[in-house]
């Protein structure tokens, strides 16, 4: 122990250096001058007694905000070496070993190869380990290249956020490129500031938290109501109260937006399922009970396209959802045309029988798929454009999968209107819908129109199947989930009108989604059904009635 006094002197010098570095004011300018870390002193301090080790870690944390990245990387390395018990402390300085117990290693400060014989390998105490881990976290957050490592660093800091200088987090936040991580750093900063001993800083933090409202922010602020300062400091209390009410309002607005968004996406699916149904019903008076199964066919076609990409073009697999659009449409349309040609053609004057016939078709399709492909849910790969989302306001996140469905429905609407209004087929469909006999007299081949329209209506259901894949589970029985709601859309909207179908889909989808959180899913269905029955008391032909002549 003869040399103990000398080492202590050097240690203090090192600490002083670090402290000075920490205290040095951050110089303004494009390239702030970073004071160098005294590497030998830090290495020596880490070889010191537990209290000194801890102080060194703390000093590093304080200094980190202004340290050079190279220094940070170096410090990070030596701290890791210390935790892994590869730091040997010899009389001439610390040596980093390749593996615990090796005979020689690299000098901690210079990197020169040195024997480590007789060196003591310090063991971290529980308290010091926590301090070192925080320091490691800081270093990782500031200097790691990999965002995952930076994220892990942030997680390590979060537990002891109060001990980390704001400047460290501020520097990390400024430099951070990953938006998610940037937001997370921000939240840790706020959390740290909220429990800061400085009242002004706390009030500032409350304001900052209220600026970015979310459910988490609200619970963080609510937790402060139990803080002694809430009772003691009127300014703190006022700031907190206004913060909470502000966040509460914002959350209510955000939740409202989320309900609207969900309603719109559900309505989109309903619209796609019901549009074909309404066209077919308007044209031929046939309610197609197999429409849900055409949706299922569209979804299974999408799965088939995905598997095809997996085999043939694994590199472009994320495009499968786009490529599936025409495939699903055609698959459902072809099955629809086959059903029309083989069965429904014979039943146009007997609508109730066609109802039973389409039920038989649906039974056949469900069980056919069940036997051929099994009952399990299909697994879909989620391309980036349908996974994740954009947090827009408070807790309201614009999820891409639902946006996909909404956009898809808008595209379907445009396509349907285009086909009905601007193509010869559309003109024929409208003519036959309004007066079949007259259209027949004018030379329109009504049977051919029926077949094509049935194919088109079935194809629309197939498209709904594509849009469903990223949101709902896909299995042989999936069609039944939507079919009753789509019928209600047709009843409410009236037959043969795309506009009526759209309005009714938004109405029913909206009512379902809006009522569900309040009274539950079952009550939502009951209320919607009762609403429809009451509605048809006044308008038995739906929102947009078609005129008939006796």
């Amino acid at each position, binding site marked *: 122990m003869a040399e103990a006094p000398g080492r202590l002197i050097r240690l203090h010098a090192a600490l002083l250096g670090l402290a000075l570095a920490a205290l040095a004011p951050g110089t303004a300018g494009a390239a702030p001058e970073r004071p160098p870390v005294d590497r030998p002193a830090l290495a020596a301090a880490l070889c010191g007694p537990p209290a000194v080790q801890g102080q060194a870690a703390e000093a590093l944390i304080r200094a980190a905000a202004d340290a050079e990245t190279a220094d940070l990387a170096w410090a990070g390395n030596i701290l890791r070496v210390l935790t892994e018990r590869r730091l040997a402390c010899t009389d001439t300085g610390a040596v980093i070993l390749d593996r615990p117990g090796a005979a020689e290693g690299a000098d901690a400060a210079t990197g020169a190869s040195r024997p480590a014989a007789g060196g003591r390998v310090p063991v971290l105490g529980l308290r010091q380990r926590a301090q070192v881990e925080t320091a490691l976290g800081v270093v990782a957050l500031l200097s790691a290249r990999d965002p995952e490592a930076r994220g892990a660093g942030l997680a390590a800091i979060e537990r002891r956020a109060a001990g980390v200088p704001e400047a460290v987090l501020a520097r990390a936040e400024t430099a951070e490129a990953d938006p998610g991580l940037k937001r997370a750093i921000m939240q840790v900063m706020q959390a740290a500031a909220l429990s800061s001993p400085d009242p002004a800083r706390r009030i500032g933090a409350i304001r900052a938290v209220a600026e970015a409202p979310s459910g988490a922010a609200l619970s963080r602020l609510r937790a402060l109501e139990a803080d002694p300062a809430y009772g003691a400091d009127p300014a703190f209390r006022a700031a907190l109260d206004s913060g909470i009410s502000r966040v509460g309002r914002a959350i209510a607005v955000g939740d409202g937006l989320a309900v609207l968004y969900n309603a719109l996406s559900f309505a989109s699916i309903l619209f796609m399922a019901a549009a074909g149904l309404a066209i077919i*019903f308007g044209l031929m*008076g046939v*309610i197609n*009970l197999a429409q849900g199964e055409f949706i299922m066919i569209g979804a299974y076609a999408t799965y088939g396209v995905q598997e095809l990409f997996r085999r043939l073009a694994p590199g472009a697999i994320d495009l499968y959802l786009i490529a599936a659009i025409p495939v699903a449409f055609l698959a459902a349309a072809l099955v629809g045309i086959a059903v029309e040609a083989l*069965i429904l053609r*014979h*039943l146009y004057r*007997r*609508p*109730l*029988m*066609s*109802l*039973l*016939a389409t*039920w*038989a*078709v649906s*039974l*056949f399709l*469900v*069980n*056919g798929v069940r*036997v051929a492909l099994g009952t399990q849910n299909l697994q879909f790969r989620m391309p980036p454009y349908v996974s994740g989302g954009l947090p827009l306001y408070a807790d309201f996140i614009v999820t891409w999968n639902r946006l996909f469905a909404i956009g898809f429905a808008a595209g379907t609407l445009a396509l349907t209107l285009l086909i009905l209004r601007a193509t010869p087929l559309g003109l024929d469909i409208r003519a036959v819908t309004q007066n079949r006999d007259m259209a027949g007299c004018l030379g329109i081949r009504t049977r051919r129109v029926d077949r094509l329209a049935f194919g088109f209506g079935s194809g629309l259901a197939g498209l709904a199947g594509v849009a469903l894949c990223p949101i709902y589970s896909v299995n042989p029985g999936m069609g*039944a989930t939507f079919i*009753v709601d789509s*019928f*209600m859309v*047709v*009843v409410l909207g009236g037959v043969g009108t795309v506009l009526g179908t759209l309005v009714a889909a938004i109405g029913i989808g909206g009512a379902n989604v809006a009522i569900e959180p309040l009274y539950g*899913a*079952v009550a939502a*269905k*009951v209320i919607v*059904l009762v609403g*429809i*029955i*009451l509605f*048809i*008391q*006044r308008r*038995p032909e739906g929102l947009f009635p078609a005129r008939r002549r*006796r």
Partner: protein
Amino acid sequence: MSGNAETFPVPRRRDGAARLGARIARDPLVAILSAAILGIALCLVLVRPSPYLVNAAGQLAAFAILAVSLDLVWGYLGILSLGHGLFFAVGGYVCAMHLVAHAYAVTGIPPDFVQFMGWKTLPWYWAGLTNAPYALVLALGLAVLVAFVFGLASFRSRVNGVYFSIISQALVYVAMLLMFRNDTGLGGNNGMTGFSLLFGWPMGSPGVTLGLAVASLAALAAVLVGASLLVGSRTGRLMLACRDDETRLRTLGYGTTRLKLGIWCLSAAIAALAGILYVPQVGIINPRVLAPDLSIEIAVWVAIGGIGRLGGAVLGAVLVNALKFWLTAAMPEAWPFILSGLVLLVVLALPNGLLDLAALRLKPTWLRGGTR
């Protein structure tokens, strides 16, 4: 046109019994079937076949009653209900409630779902259900009430055809969702089962099984004859008129809403009766009887047998369900395909159901003249 205001002497009237016989004879199929049904009931009592067979006969009879109830509104009034399972379920549930309440009163063991929900006792609406006549009145009354409210709302606003069908389907679907909830006090998802006593006798004993089957067969014969008298009466002719041209009938001064509502409620009551008879024979009721598919299946029985022929409805229900009993045990995978094939065959090739097939072979005139 001056003569028709004067009153002519009323023509001679045949006496009551002869008229009744003549009316039944108008549809020999009904007469034959009712006789056969009663004959089968008698056979069951005398021959005492295996309880499985007795039970199957009883269940088939309950299904046939259900089919007749639907044929009454679909075949004769043109109203296709895809929600008749609701009325069947009302009857079935109330009957199950009676059986559960009765067993609870006798044994003192609370039913499973009461224990499951952690309740102390049965909910208030179970009061009095130990009393069988009250349960019967409640079952029929409730079915008629539901039918009345729904029918009034629909017929008053002239909802008919396919529209009515799909709204009635939504009705049964919503009812199913409702019954799947555990807090309804009706067994929720699992429904009610494990009935131990019927009027104090142990459930499942050969005597009770036979009694239930004979009661079902007798009820079927009564319903068949009653319905046949109804459709042969002046009201029956108005029903056909309403089915074929409702506006014409209205403009002749008939309030068709009342006519439709009356028959609709009667049909609901008959369906509820079928449910009452069905539940003690299968020993369970759960929300799956409210599945829309089951309600469509009832229409399928009627279509397969022949719409607008009461005998056809009975034959269809018996045939399809017997086939189902056999095939779901023998080759369960194949049954849905066979059923859908059967439906398509009937719908495409035999518009009057399997009675067409019989007519092809035998060509008796009384099998002709079925409708749609």
